[in-house]
Every structure is written in structure tokens, then in C-alpha cells.
């Protein structure tokens, strides 16, 4: 078991300001949280010293970044603003859709099509006087380390695992180490992360470099459901198989809106077309229950969502942000699962760090690979191994002091030029035992260095 890492944001920052000025009105308005901040109790964090300065810090200094202004983001914004936080930033690239309104309560029908981040911020600043939230309507990848470094705490309510991993990688890249390789705690920006799916959810606290990070626990994410292509094409059994067929094969073949128009799950005409064709296919095979709702669900990979689960998970995250900022009690250690489908059940456990985690370990990762393996084997390992689970890694190496691109899928012209390398043996590409490869992927803002370790592959081949 890992010991509970001791971390106190408030103490690290050593509040310099002495006098705290607040009006009577402010005193009364924040009466509720002032009781837990200005009074000591038997279960407080050992570092906690009750004072009026803590609320002052929360209100006037503590900068919190909320990533995502969707189901969780709207809740987080409200929760944190009502816990005294004023310096809130919200980032979200999405615009508001009708299907958001069953839970994203800062938006109205008139707001459809507008930026989620801007709309949410405008609403909260109006409803809660003194709140100074700032919106960023862009992808998280558009902002650099200088932007992320300004925050004391980041809280994340995303539905995309890739974006979450990228953000995790960004916070890890901001870590600084002392000369003796120990972590410089002032470079730690805690990450509070929440996620929901239907009636289930989770909330966790990550102290970068100190406790398990997103990459340490990739195996906690369920693998995405996929259907084998041969089943879809030849032996469909389920309505999903018929929809997948139209989505993957028939659309590309028939190009109903011309070859330049990709299938858009938000375009009702596109969905209607897929629905109709999938029904035709289902009819041909005697398969029933191809509905419009299912069609849309398969095309967009829709995750069910409801206001109540989002409210509970966001609230659990907000409580942790409040604890981090105030040290009024110890943070959860460090991962809570919530299941509301059979009663209401929570379970908190200590997710453990991986000593050789790609993102947070400050050590060079080693990959075991057969001497006579092809580059494809390395590529597959990067995509399928639980330690990496990358989406389309670009692989380079340095040979005789020069950068050499071995394979890169993200840029078409380079992909074509390097495609043949996948079939080549790694030794023919100039790689050797102990060689380092540099890997870039959408799941991380950083280039990851991996050291190859050749293994003799007798056992593996014999069993085939």
C-alpha cells in the first residue's frame, strides 16, 4: 500500500497577506463555509490552521481550471462558485446542443449553437456576484504549458479519455525535480477528475508525481466495444451489426452526399439515411429492432447521461477541490466509484502508482521486444499494451545524431513514405538493444522516450 501523500497547497503557498477585509454582507453570505474554515475540529488535516485568510485565499488567489463545460462542467462551475472560488477558468471547444439540456443546466434553448464555455461563464458570473469566471472556447491542445502553469488546481469533467490523458500528460510535464531527483512540490498542480456513464461514475484526486495518475490506471477504463469486420460484412446477427455495416462500408461506397461529405452523427439527414439503409439490410437478414435511437447511438457512440449522476460526481469533485485549497480535511485517497443503479453505492480505494508509468515516473520506460521483431510489432505494442494504449503513435529515433522518422500515421504524405518500414525488421532500421525510440501520440502532449530491450523469443514462437 502506498502511504497517503501529504500535500498542502495552502502551506506551500504560505499566504503572505495579513489583513483580510470583508463586509458584513460578505461575512453573512459566506457564513456556512466560514464555519468549517475558521473553526478547528478533531478530524482536521494536521496542517490545518483555521483562519479567515483561507477564505481570502480561496476567493482572491486560488486559480482553478475547469476542463469541460458539459454535464460535469456546469455542475462544477456552480459548486465551486458557491464554495467561494472566484478565479475560475473554463475551457471547452463544444457548442450547445438540444440533447445537452436534460442536464447542462446553465444553458437554455435560446443558447443552442453557442459556445458552452462562454455561455456557462456568462450565466455563473451573473448569478453569483463577485464570481470572475473566464471562458476559453477552444480545444485543450490549443493552450500551452504557460497557460496551464498558472493554475493552483485543475478539475476535469471530460467524456473523452484521449483528452483526459493529454491533460494528465501536460500536468506531468510541468513537474520539476530537485538536484537529488526528489520532486519539487511547488511544481505540483493537483488534478481532480470526474467521469460518468449512465448511473455510474467516478471521482479521483491525482497529485502529479505523488499519487497514481491517469496513465498509471489505464486498465480502469473499459475497452471499447468493437465488432469484427467479417461479422458485419457477412454474418450480421444484431441490429448493431447492420448499422455498423452502413456506417463503415456502405457510406463510403455510396457517398450519398458526395465523396467529400463524411458521415455526421449530428446531421439528422445523415442519421436518417443510415437508419433507412440499416433497416433495409436488417430486413434482408430477418433481424429486428433497428431503431432510430439505436442508429444514432451506434453512429455517435452515445453514452447515456442523466442530471443526477452528474450532480453527485461533480459535487464529490468540488468537495475535493475545496479540501485541496483549504486543507480543512484530508483528501480522498484517491479513487471513488459511484454506482446508483442498485441503491446508491460508493467505494473509495487507493489506486496505486506504476513505478514505471510513462507519464509520471520520471524514469525512462523500457520495452521488451524480440530481436527479430518488425516495426509493426512495436507499433502494435504501443496501441494494445495496457501501459500505452495509444491511438496512432508516430515513432522516430536518433541514428548517428540525426532524427529519423520510422513511422508516422498522422500526416498522410509521411505515412505513405514510411508505411513500408512497418514490415521491416527493427534491426534493419538501425535499432539495436538499448536503442531509444521517441513516440508521439494524441494521448499526450509530450514525446515519450522508450528504451528497447531485446529478448530472446524462443518461448513465444514455440507455442504457436
Amino acid at each position, binding site marked *: 500500500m502506498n502511504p497517503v501523500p501529504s500535500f498542502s497547497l495552502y502551506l506551500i503557498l504560505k499566504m503572505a497577506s495579513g489583513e483580510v477585509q470583508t463586509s458584513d454582507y460578505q461575512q453573512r453570505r459566506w457564513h456556512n463555509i466560514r464555519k468549517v474554515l475558521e473553526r478547528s475540529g478533531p478530524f482536521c488535516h494536521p496542517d490545518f490552521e483555521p483562519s479567515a485568510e483561507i477564505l481570502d485565499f480561496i476567493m482572491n488567489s486560488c486559480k482553478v481550471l475547469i476542463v469541460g463545460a458539459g454535464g460535469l462542467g456546469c455542475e462544477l462551475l456552480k459548486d465551486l462558485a458557491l464554495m467561494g472560488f472566484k478565479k475560475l477558468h473554463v475551457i471547452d471547444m463544444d457548442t450547445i446542443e438540444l440533447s445537452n439540456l436534460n442536464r447542462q443546466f446553465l444553458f437554455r434553448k435560446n443558447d443552442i449553437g453557442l459556445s458552452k464555455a462562454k455561455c456557462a461563464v456568462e450565466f455563473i458570473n451573473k448569478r453569483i456576484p463577485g464570481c470572475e469566471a473566464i471562458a476559453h472556447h477552444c480545444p485543450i491542445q490549443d493552450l500551452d504549458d504557460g497557460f496551464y502553469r498558472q493554475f493552483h488546481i485543475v478539475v476535469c469533467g471530460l467524456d473523452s479519455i484521449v483528452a483526459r490523458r493529454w491533460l494528465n500528460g501536460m500536468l506531468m510535464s510541468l513537474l520539476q525535480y530537485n538536484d537529488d531527483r526528489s520532486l519539487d512540490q511547488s511544481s505540483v498542480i493537483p488534478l481532480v477528475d470526474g467521469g460518468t456513464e449512465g448511473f455510474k461514475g467516478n471521482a479521483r484526486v491525482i497529485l502529479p508525481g505523488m499519487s497514481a495518475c491517469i496513465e498509471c490506471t489505464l486498465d480502469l477504463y473499459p475497452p471499447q466495444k468493437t465488432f469484427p469486420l467479417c461479422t458485419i460484412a457477412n454474418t450480421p446477427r444484431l441490429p448493431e451489426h447492420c448499422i455498423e455495416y452502413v456506417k463503415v462500408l456502405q457510406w463510403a461506397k455510396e457517398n450519398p452526399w458526395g465523396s467529400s461529405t463524411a458521415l455526421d452523427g449530428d446531421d439528422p439527414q445523415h442519421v436518417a439515411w443510415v437508419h433507412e439503409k440499416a433497416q433495409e439490410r436488417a430486413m434482408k437478414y430477418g*433481424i429486428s429492432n433497428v431503431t432510430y435511437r439505436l442508429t444514432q447511438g451506434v453512429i455517435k457512440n452515445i453514452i447515456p447521461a442523466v*442530471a443526477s449522476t452528474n450532480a453527485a460526481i461533480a459535487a*464529490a469533485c468540488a468537495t475535493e477541490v475545496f479540501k485541496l485549497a483549504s486543507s480543512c480535511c484530508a483528501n480522498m485517497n484517491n479513487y471513488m466509484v459511484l454506482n446508483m443503479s442498485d441503491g446508491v453505492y460508493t467505494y473509495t480505494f487507493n489506486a496505486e502508482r506504476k513505478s514505471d508509468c510513462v507519464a509520471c515516473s520520471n524514469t525512462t520506460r523500457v520495452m521488451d521486444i524480440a530481436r527479430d521483431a518488425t516495426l509493426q510489432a512495436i507499433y502494435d505494442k504501443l496501441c494494445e499494451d495496457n501501459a500505452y494504449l495509444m491511438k496512432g503513435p508516430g515513432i522516430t529515433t536518433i541514428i548517428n545524431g540525426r532524427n529519423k522518422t520510422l513511422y508516422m500515421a498522422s500526416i498522410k504524405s509521411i505515412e505513405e513514405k514510411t508505411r513500408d518500414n512497418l514490415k521491416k525488421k527493427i534491426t534493419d532500421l538501425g535499432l539495436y538493444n538499448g536503442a531509444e525510440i521517441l513516440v508521439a501520440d494524441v494521448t499526450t502532449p509530450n514525446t515519450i522516450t522508450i528504451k528497447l530491450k531485446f529478448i530472446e523469443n524462443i518461448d513465444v514462437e514455440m507455442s504457436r
Partner: protein
Amino acid sequence: MASLSPKSPEQNEKSKQYDRQLRLWGDHGQTALENGHICLINATALGTEVLKSIVLPGIGAITIVDENNVSDEDIGSNFFLETTSKGLNRGSETLRLLLELNDAVQGHSVQEPPDQILQENPDFFKSFSVVIGTSLNEKLIKDLSQYLWDLNKPFILCRSVGFLGSFRIQFREHSIIETHPENEKVDLRLDVPFTGLSDYFDSIVISTLELKDHGHIPWIVILYKAVQKWQTTNLNRWPMSRKEKNEIKDIIQQFIRSDENGVPINEENFEEAIRAVNTALLPTFLPVKVQDLIYSSAAINLTKESNPFWIMCSALRAFVEAEGKGNLPLRGVLPDMTASTEHYVKLQNIYRNQASVDAEIVYRKVQQIVSQLQCDSISETEVKLFCRHAHDLHLIIGSNIALEYQTGSPVASYIARHLEEPDVMMVHYILLRAADMFKSEHCRAPGEWEPESDIAKLKNCVSKILSDVSCSPFPKDDHIHEMCRYGGAEIHSVSAFVGGCVAHEAIKLITKQYNPVNNTFIYDGASTNSATFTF
């Protein structure tokens, strides 16, 4: 250019708005929600957080009962108040801002004190689907819960103090047809195949199949054939023991064909058959839970007022005893498995058709009962849904909140048992109760002015409750001190957590889907811990 397909009913605006939740409780669940009416007593931060997550998904109507005027503290912790709300009635102000969330929801606000309503106009509560109360005083808790118990009206009592939160659900009984279990058990009837199924099995001879078809027959067929073969040397028994099941696996292995070099050909469907041996060979049986339901007195002694659930249970019993030969109606769901389209669809239809035949029989029995009792009719859709989920029917018998306040009741010894363990979550429950008692005695929350001086007084309240449940006093004052530190403060994020949960449970009660908490939930935001107690 592609043609526009006719507008299907699923594309309307409401379906789009509620799409993400319709995937969880379906259109029929949504209809139930839209016919629901929630009454909230006291629009505290906790109260409005509950309503928020009920208004958003589209409850039919809400009524807020609140006599209080808005204070600065309210504005500081309640999202559904504005600076300009100060001094105005809290119920009508929060109602106004809550209704902005969803224009399909109706809202009412009542400014009379709830105890006065209970005294002078108790019928007021009759029209609601669920009553939810926050910040109620001890006397009102007792009176209201007793009244709603007698009225047979679901009641959720919730609290949020400092880092602690709790809710208690009270109803007499709650039946759930769609429990949405995580792992739905399969109902294949391999041991008692109905005619359609055995005819299909008999039409296939594995040894004469062409190689292509051999790899395409569903594992159910393979397993059935293996058992048949095994039975010829085992007196037609059904394989039960681990050893016998291993023998079945061996037979399946023998079915697998080999190529010209004698190497077994890898066929996914046979692998699936071997993997299924341990689970799919469980004999068909009537689950004890369902047996208890259909033979309970509520299902046997029907009256005109009987709940449709009990009428259907009664029809189910008649089916089990006659046509079902001891078993429930067939579920009619075939799990996904490797197979050719033709085989899979054919087998799926065999199961579906039999399920619909069974459901039809149950429906006729329901109609008979309905006409005998001369009660409200039950639709075929309802009966079909009931039969489809007959294996997972769930009934919760509730208990009266008033019992928690009675000395010497079984609830008291239940509380005592948990305290002796010691279970810290039960300690939290006692402290929440003690804080209520303190408030009735001193007209303020413990620690509201000054924490230290109230510790002794709160300790008195704790001692009274502990002696009522025949428990010795707490060895330490730490939890009492912590409650005084909170001073009755309502922390928004704790209220938001409990509020989300309570809204969720109210939706479960109204839609009659998913199992609700039975019956008390305690949450400690400081330790991120929760517990469920059944009082």
C-alpha cells in the same frame, strides 16, 4: 442525392432533448416521470439541488412548501436565489429560477408552514407522487412521516450538515419490474426444451454438417447435442457435478473437426460452447424470490384495490402451476453468440415466439382476474414487460420512520448492533439525529454561535438517543465536537451530492425502475465514505 426518409416519431424535439436519459429508462419511464408530481418542503440548498435534477429530466410538476424568507446565508449557498431575492419568500423565489430550467414543468409554491398544513389541510399531500423534506424539526419529522405512512405516500427525508449528509426513504412497499440487473441471467431451457426448440435441435445433425455450416451453428445447439449424447450412457440424467460437466466438455471436444493432418480446426462456436458449460447447464428453476412473491398473501388475496403488480403476480402463479409446469414464462432473449445469420435469427425467433405465446397466456389470465374483480384494466404491453422481467421481479417492504424513535423496537437493536461494531457511519446517523433534537430544545443548531459551549449540551442529546437504543455513551467526544464545529452549516457541495442522490432515488420511485436505496443512506464528505442502513 439521398432521399429524405419519413420523419419518424423518435425525431421529435422532446426525444432529442431527453435522448441521453431515454436510453436509461425508455419512453415509458419518461411518461411515468412526466405524470409525476413532487412536493418539496423547505427550499434549502439541499432542497433545490434535489429539484434541479428532477426538473431537468422533465418531472410533470413540483410544489414547494416554504414559509421562510430569503437570508444572505441562503443566497451564499443556494444556486436558485439571486441577490435581489433577499427578504422575499424562499419557496417562490427558488421556484421561479428552477422553472427556468425546463418549460415543460409545472410549478406551485405554498407559503404556509408545513405543520399547519398537516393540521388543517392534510389532504394537501394526497396529490403528490413523492414528498421530500429537508430541514424539518423533530416533531414534524415524526408527525409527517406517520401521516404519509398512513396515507401510503412515499416520503424522502434528507439532511445536510457540514460534511455529513443523509436521506431516508419511507414507503410501505415498492415493487419493481424493471430492475435492470448488471448481469441478466439467461433463460435457455436446455433441460426442458419447449416443442419449437426441440424440433429445431432435432433438425440438426452435427456429424453430417458441411464444414462451413459446422462453424456456424450456435453454441446452444452444440451444448444440447453434447448433453444428449452424454445422456445415452447416463440414464437420461442432467449433468450436474463438476465431473459430469467436464465429461460434457470432452464430448464437445470430440465434435471439433480436424484438418487433413489431424490438427483440430479452430472454431469459435465450439470454444463458446465449452466456455458456456459451467453456466448454461444450470437447470431451469423458479427463483425463490419470485416464488415468495407469487405465493404471498397480497398475490393470493386480491381485492378491487389490489396493485396491478399483485394482479400480475397472481396470473403468473396460475401460469407456473399450469402451462408453465413449474417454470416462469420464457424470457425470450437470446444472448449474442457466434453463428450464421440464418441460424441465429431462426433460433432467436424460436425463443421470441415462445415468449410471446407464454405472455399471451398470462395476459389472458390477467384479463380474467380483472373482469372478476371489476378493477382497472392492465394493458398487454404492461403484461409483456412483466413477463419479460419475471425472473428479476423485486419487492421492497418498507418501514415507518417513527420506528427509529421508539425504544425497544427491532430498529433500536439494529442501531445498537452497528454502534457496537463500531460502525462510524452509524455514529454519524446518531449525530444527525442528535442535532435535530438539539435544535428542538435550543432553537438553534449545535455550535451555531460558538462550538465549544454546545458540546456538553449536544452530548446530552446523544446520550438520550443512545439510552433509547440501550447503548453505552460514546467513549470520545470527537464526533460531537465535529458536529458543533459545523454549527448547522450547509456546505454546498455536500448538499449537491446528497441532492443528486435524492433526485435519483425519487426518479426510481416514480418510474418504478431500478432498485432504490433500502432505506437509509449516510454520506460523509470528509472521509468520502458512505453506507446504507435498513431500518
